[in-house]
């Protein structure tokens, strides 16, 4: 099978994301990349846990004073749902339903943008309360961990939009199917990271 071959619903392979050597490599390489990303976030989590609530004086806010569950809960729901919509997009990709895939991808991007908007809003709230990147070690660690995740979401949004615009006119082939697929892997990954952030930073911040 060649990367630039034309397909129909009938000839479309069952696993279009890994049916050429190039796409098999891309698929595996991306999993390895996510393995490295896991260690990256693990290091950031460890740093955060070591520096949580480490502030220079008693006037600084601690985790339990800052976080509000309703806001982060809505953000969490947006991102979890976007993971689901990206699954639908991949379902349609595997069924050679290009238009439907694009719709679900668009929805994924929209939900991701909503999440990012809430995160920016949340950060501005904290900054107004005096919890900034430079105010304490706690602040540095918090904004670095959550900000790294936010940066990943922002990059994912740009990636998704680039893919959609670039391929809007030409439909699916074995050259771009793996591109869509690794994007969805990436998107799931940042969703999983968020689940840990929600647990370790927010839930444990409220009770611990």
């Amino acid at each position, binding site marked *: 099978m060649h990367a630039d071959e034309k397909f129909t619903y009938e000839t479309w392979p069952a696993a279009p994301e890994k049916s050429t050597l190039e796409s098999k490599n891309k698929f595996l390489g991306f999993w390895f990349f996510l393995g490295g990303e896991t260690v990256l976030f693990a290091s950031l989590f460890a740093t955060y846990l*070591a520096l949580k609530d480490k502030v*220079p004086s008693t006037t600084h806010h601690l985790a339990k004073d800052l976080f509000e569950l309703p806001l982060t809960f809505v953000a969490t729901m947006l991102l979890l749902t976007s993971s689901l919509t990206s699954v639908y997009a991949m379902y349609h990709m595997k069924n050679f339903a290009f238009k439907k895939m694009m719709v679900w991808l668009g929805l994924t991007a929209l939900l991701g943008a909503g999440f990012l908007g809430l995160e920016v809003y949340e950060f501005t709230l904290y900054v107004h309360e005096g919890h900034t990147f430079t105010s304490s070690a706690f602040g540095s660690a918090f904004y670095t961990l959550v900000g790294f995740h936010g940066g990943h979401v922002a990059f994912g949004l740009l990636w998704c939009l680039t893919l959609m615009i670039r391929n809007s006119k030409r439909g699916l082939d074995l050259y771009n199917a793996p591109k869509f697929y690794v994007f969805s892997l990436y998107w799931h990954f940042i969703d999983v990271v968020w689940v840990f952030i929600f647990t370790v930073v927010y839930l444990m911040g409220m009770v611990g």
Partner: protein
Amino acid sequence: MSTYAQKKGFGATLWDFLTTVDHKKIAILYLIAGGFFFLVGGLEAVFIRIQLAVPNNDFVSAGLFNEIITMHGTTMIFLAAMPLVFAFMNAVMPLQIGARDVAFPFVNALGFWLFFFGGIFLNLSWFLGGAPDAGWTSYASLALHSKGHGVDFYILGLQISGIGTLIGGINFLVTIINMRAPGMTYMRMPLFTWTTFVTSALILFAFPPLTVGLVLMMFDRLFGANFFDPTLGGNTVIWEHLFWIFGHPEVYILILPAFGIFSEIFPIFSRKRLFGYSSMVFATVLIGFLGFMVWAHHMFTTGLGPVANAIFAVATMAIGVPTGIKIFNWLLTMWGGSVKFTTPMHWAMAFIPSFLAGGVTGVMLASAAADYQYHDTYFVVAHFHYVIVGGVVFAVFAGTHLYWPKMFGTMLNEVLGKITFWLFFIGFHLTFFIQHFLGLWGMPRRVFTYLPGQGFDAANMVSSIGAAFMGLGVIVMLYNIIITSVKNVKVGNDPWGDGRTLEWAIPSPPPFYNFKQLPLVRGLDAYWLEKMDGKKGMTPAEPLGDIHMPNSSFLPFMMAMGLFIAAFGAMYHVNDKAWALPVMIIGLLVTFGSMFLRSVKDDHGFHIHKEDLMDEEDKGVKA
């Protein structure tokens, strides 16, 4: 079709190397760049030994001495040893598994250029206000208080080159898993391929903690964060942990490929298959695994407590077991073999006792209680030079002589090679053996001078004389490279005569597509098997057909250069320079713009047609 066969202008050759995605040319780039930084780091070592040759010396000032030792360590580890090891991985590993290239040729080129620009950036610090001076470990308590931009050069330079190494690691992993020739099962892979595989896994999991550590340090120094500032709640020990969680696997990243090179040399020149192949594979994997469990033995005196120290001490000693397995296997490979004393074999045989000495002091250092005595003395300096020089640098010299014909199509001179060996080997032991005793007598490391009459004078002079011998050895090697390149006597597929693995079954240097037809691998030491069956070459596993190749690209260079430019902006932005922010934005735009271009522009590569491949055969071109 080979580039070496065609006469090309300098400009065309330069452009070819700037845009190449061919693993063999990237290997040459790594070899040249790594060799250059090795000379720079070596020069710094010579300055250190001149300064310390006599007591109360004032060859360099105390501050400059700190810069020199920092840059010597950083350059040797990140910019010399790693790229030189990468050079051999790139040159040999795809050939050993019977692949036409690595899995991601574009990413391979990007990895090189990131390393290159990171290294250049780091070394530009010499000309732009002073080099980093907080030691190669750059502990936060020193680094945060280092004046000027030295440490910023360290942070940003290592960050850029670190990304390059990381993507290189991913590339090799995927290559080995997906692109082995028919019949090349995991347990038929040559040991150098196995060590490349395990090393790449170590890179994948060890470099992200360094990335994070460098990011935190960058935030602290350049953007006002407080990770390591205790007055604002920070903790400097976090840097120590992150650095060593990276730093310890890093030394295995260096030594495992060295083990791999020696595991190739012993069977070739003993003319006998590697003793205990499967136990060698097992030991390699085990060393890789244990490498992540021992980082805190660098921090015994930090105060982690007796329980942590005891656990890390035991884990560290455990590494002696798989390493011991390897030593015995190498010895038993030579046992009863018909040994040929070539230059690579000289290095390999000298490696065993030299590295073993470093291993033994390693076990001594692993005893946490005793380590309080050795810590921060010349004993530690002697230990790690025995493992890194006696292991990695010996392997690089051995590999250079062994693979030179495969990479460049001509042999290095054996007589000069042996002169290099003896000069370097004697110089090495002269320099570092006595440093064990200096350390035990109480000479601390990283001091710029010492007083006369403390019993350090004679030993330091001996050590400095040894360094001169090593320097001479390297000069002879350079001379060797120049005269053999000028003579350029071409050699055939298997210049050593006893090659065992696939790389020796194809021309030297190989055609850019490596294998006209993918070879069929029938067992361990695939080429040797065919030779023993009286065949001239490998049995092809496929009919002659079109070969799919990747296109060259200038984008990897652009992406890396963008980060290089952005790093200047990020660094000078703390000085309130008006141009800093625009420069940073422009740099990032170059990088992300190139990534965008790569993403939207389809690149299907090209095909070499069957007819052209057959034509070459007819004309008798040694492609």
